């Protein structure tokens, strides 16, 4: 169990595509625990991806139930998604996103309102789950990390959609 250092933009690893996990083995379990520790160590942190700590494997964790706004919305609680794939999405929403890897900025990003996700859970069991609203945004953001996509890549207008943080809360 450990809080790992978060890679910060413009670290080139953040723009790499991560490789699928071949098999879910017990040693993956300690990496997942470290990811959760790292996510929870960040104030308000509701998601993390393995590439953010420099491990180019397709693993993400999302837990919006830990945040005030997320806990009030429909959610799946703690999600560990290995090799996640977004099978379908629908609707649109605009959310102000912040990212541990881009600490100085926040941005208004358009995301799908609803997603259908296929993944393996931490036991290697195949799951298909639906997610809406706040949690669906978190999943889309984290899956983007696995493809080397940062929210900066999704900003459509730097004038109206990108904001410098006064300080990182």
């Amino acid at each position: 169990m450990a809080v790992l250092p978060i890679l910060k933009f413009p670290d080139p690893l953040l723009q790499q595509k991560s490789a699928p996990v071949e098999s879910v083995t017990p040693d993956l379990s300690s990496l997942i625990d470290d990811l959760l520790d790292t996510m929870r160590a960040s104030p308000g942190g509701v998601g993390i991806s393995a590439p953010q700590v420099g491990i180019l494997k397709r693993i993400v964790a999302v837990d919006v139930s830990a945040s005030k706004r997320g806990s009030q919305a429909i959610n799946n609680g703690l999600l560990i998604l290995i090799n996640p794939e977004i099978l379908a999405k629908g609707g649109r929403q605009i959310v102000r996103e912040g990212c541990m890897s881009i600490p100085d900025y926040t941005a208004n990003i358009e995301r799908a309102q609803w997603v259908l996700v296929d993944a393996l859970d931490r036991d290697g069991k195949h799951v298909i789950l639906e997610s809406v609203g706040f949690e669906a945004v978190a999943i889309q953001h984290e899956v983007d990390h696995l493809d080397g996509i940062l929210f900066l890549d999704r900003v459509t207008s730097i004038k109206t959609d990108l904001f410098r943080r006064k300080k990182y809360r």
Partner: protein
Amino acid sequence: MGHFSVSVVGKDRPGIVAEVSRILFEQGCNIEDSTCTILSGQFAMILVVFHPKMAATGELNPAFEEVRSRMGLMVTVHALKDEEVVHEKAFSGAPHIISVYGADRPGIVYMVAKELALRKVNITDLNTQVVGSKDRPVYVMVLEVDLPEGIDMKELEREFDRIRKELSVSITVRPIETMEL
């Protein structure tokens, strides 16, 4: 050396950006910041440029004479002090969105903006639009604001209530929450 703001307004058509940027290039200016929009067929652009030698408005301004006369553009050049040039939009308070809508009538923007100004609320973005049908136009205004620390929200809400009644508009204030990922 110095910074200038250059604002350009004129009837929209292809080639305005090309002509303005050509002049800036020929004068040796570096475009550091710019944005443009089209409002009811009027093209409007504002740029902040830097010149390694020029510092006074009068040095850069005459270069735009040809587009003023040939293209009918209104071009205003203004020398900026170094301390006026801030490259990033920094939030000083808590970002909020205020949306206002109702039947189109004069004074909506002013009434809301006045109350905000009285409380030192900085408006960082403003969009207004008339939507709906011709005989039933609806006025929509969306503001992004920074609410300063310690602002009395109850008192602001009371003022907004008065405006709601006076102008029969709907006013909603909501925080822009950032998702930490």
